[in-house]
């Protein structure tokens, strides 16, 4: 233990493991410390066998693997490990984290947790009707089909002439 206390790398690894366990809402603190030290000792042994790995990497790989394995085992199917992990957080039994033997009701509750995006699907198709927009649609379609800026400018010029003629007539005959 003295060697761990004085080695800054192991110290860092210790803090990271502890944080990782606390991120699983593990209580009480005594249990967090016990688990941390257990993982750290095991990591130290592994590191001695493979000194080329970093101490932090070795310790955290071990911690993450233990966690993944535990959740896979809890789920009964590695593909459902994430679901078991999520269910574990809503179970309120975080004190059981990484426990080798678990109560049957807890395991059952985790495996049957209803974390679903929705109830059972009952697909049905939505059929869109072709609406009748009446004459306005025909007018619009004809306009879009036949529209061009050349036509528009010519029509505009014609109306300007008509307007000016009407205006001139008004001034000439009615004012």
């Amino acid at each position, binding site marked *: 233990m003295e060697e761990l206390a004085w080695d800054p790398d192991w110290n860092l690894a210790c*803090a*990271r493991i*502890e*944080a*990782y366990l*606390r*991120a*699983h*809402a593990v209580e009480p603190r005594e249990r967090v410390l016990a688990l941390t030290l257990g993982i750290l000792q095991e990591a130290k042994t592994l590191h001695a066998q493979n000194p080329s790995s*970093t101490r*932090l*990497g070795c310790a*955290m*790989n071990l*911690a*993450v693997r233990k*966690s993944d394995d535990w959740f896979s085992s809890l789920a009964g199917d590695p593909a459902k490990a*994430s*679901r078991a*992990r*999520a269910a*574990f*957080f*809503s179970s309120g039994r975080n004190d059981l984290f990484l426990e080798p033997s678990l109560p049957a009701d807890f395991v059952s509750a985790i495996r049957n*947790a*209803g*974390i*679903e*995006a*929705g*109830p*059972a*699907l*009952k*697909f*049905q*198709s*939505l*059929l*869109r*009707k*072709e*609406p*009748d*927009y*009446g*004459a*306005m*649609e025909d007018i*619009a*379609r004809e306009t*879009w089909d036949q529209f061009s800026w050349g036509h528009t400018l010519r029509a505009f010029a014609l109306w300007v002439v008509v307007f000016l003629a*009407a*205006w001139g007539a*008004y001034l000439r005959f*009615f004012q």
Partner: protein
Amino acid sequence: MKPFPGIASLNPDGVALRHALFLATGAGITICGIVLMVAILRVDGFTPVEWVQLALFVPLFGQIAFGFTIAFWGFLILASGGDRYEIMRTLPNPPADGPAGGTAIVLPVFNEDPDRTFRGLENMFRSVEAAGGGGSFDFFVLSDSNDPGRWIEEEAAWFRLCSRCRAFGRIFYRRRRVPLHGKSGNIADFCRRWGKNFQYLLILDADSVMSGETILRLARVMDANPGAGIVQTAPQIIRGKSLLQRLVQFATRLVGPLFAAGSNFWHLGGGNYWGHNAIIRLKPFIGQCVLPVIPGRSADDRHILSHDTVEASLMQEAGYQVWFAYLEDGSYEESPPDLSESLKRDRRWCQGNLQHFWFLFAPGTRFTNRIHIFFGLMAYLTAPLLVLFIALSSWDNRWKQQFEIFSAQVDVPVGPGWASTVLLGLTLALLFLPKILGLIHLLPRAGDYGGILRLFLSAIAETIFSILLASILLYFYTRFVILTVLGLRVTWKSQIRDKSDIPFGEAVKTYWGPTCAGVLAGLVAFFWAPALILWLSPFLAGLILSIPVAMLSGSEKAGLLLKDPGLLLIPEESSLPPILRNLDPGEPAVPGILQLALSPEVNAIHCSLLRKSHGHHEAGLLAGLRKRLLQEGPQSLSRRELNALLWDRQAVESLHRDIWISEENSLHPRWRNALRDFVRR
């Protein structure tokens, strides 16, 4: 008052009589205005410009005449003790026991603050449980959020809510991978997947809150009236903090009840649907109300943006009625925090309402729907028509050297004689009488609004601010309409903000247009027709002051300044209903992406909701994205890349593992700091 046994008992003659009364009142006032206008314009004989002026005057004056008509009939109905034909009166008294019809309560969300959204949802869930709703109601959060951080935060908020309330299997969260066709597409997707499971659909907005008792009553009123397709409530606006929010929430209490009662008076079962805080009968909704495409040149043009009015119309075409439960308490929503956000919403509504033009002349559209569609169109078309009217009036004034007069909402050319005075008086009466009638209606409940004096002062404050806002809205609505008609996209410079204050730079960028327009109009009036300046002053003041007015609109300090002495109060501020408690946001959450990578809980929640990983051919690409994310930080990936990464379960699990086993110096400083914070906590 006689009971209302059910909508099947409605006498068609009675409905027709109400339509006739409503139209006769509005048309009668409009004709009076036209007669007066003709009397003014014909003094020197009609010029062509005056004929155009008169043509513009008719819809402009008609708009305020019919607005007044609704408020007037609403006042009469409320003063006489309420409407017999109010849909909620069909519920038995005492209320029925037993379960109501199966109802899905859906909450479509799009990048909204999950904290506020899920607080509201929790209140509603608990309230439904407390009201005895139990197994009849399921809740669905239907997310279209395309911000990856918001996605993760929503999932975490949903999971924690379900854990707290033991509501797994009662509250669901589903996010669409492809958010096609916005909110209407989101609802359609729900109907396609789960619509068969339920009788009714209660649609909310992200900021909506409804009490359990109200939800239960709505389901029961649908049970009691098989001919009702949609029942829309009148949501009260609440939780106003900024000045604009407080003004809006007060204004809706002042005139809202009158307009609501008046609307129900004339349309009865031919009402409108506002898209939220309403219950819908699912079978006809799925079978008959699938949104059609509208004529257009591109796919975007053909998609209906504003679905609610169209759905109400289709529901009525299918033979079902749309009712307005305007007296029902316990239905709430919030309003945009400032003028810029409010205008953004108006821009969407403007584009959507103008699309409804196609249904105005469609053969199958019912009479009442045509009127709703017409009013919706005129809400925005009035602005360019009014601008044109002002321009022509000025031209005519210059031409004939006559005196003209303008008011904030409508300008009325005034010639010599009694007609001009009467028309001015009539216009002002139509504009301000609804507020006066609203005040009279609220007097018996003045205590809820801080007392008679404060109620009166609040109404004056609201009126002054709405006069200032009127010309700013006129400017922007005109711009929105012109750009929409030309098929151009309206660009907007302001950003989505968490807080409501508009910074000065952003206000200048957004409101320099109306300011310049106001200065220019003022100069033109000053040199051309100085006598107009006095009459134009409210109109010009709003435009010229649009920058400070916009900034003031979003100011919470200004809102508080009026709240402290008891102005602009609403009853919910004197006595907070339980359903509105604990809605204020808590501590700012850790950004979603950081939570996803670091928190085993959030990571597991996300992975448990993903179906499966991508194939091997994408694994390399995703590994590259993951590496970049960790080494170059969350900002290094585009939203699309981040979304692609987050849809892959294996990639997300690996991200979590990688960050925990990495040496600090191999991580981007953002991750390094986040990890340190996590370890320290």
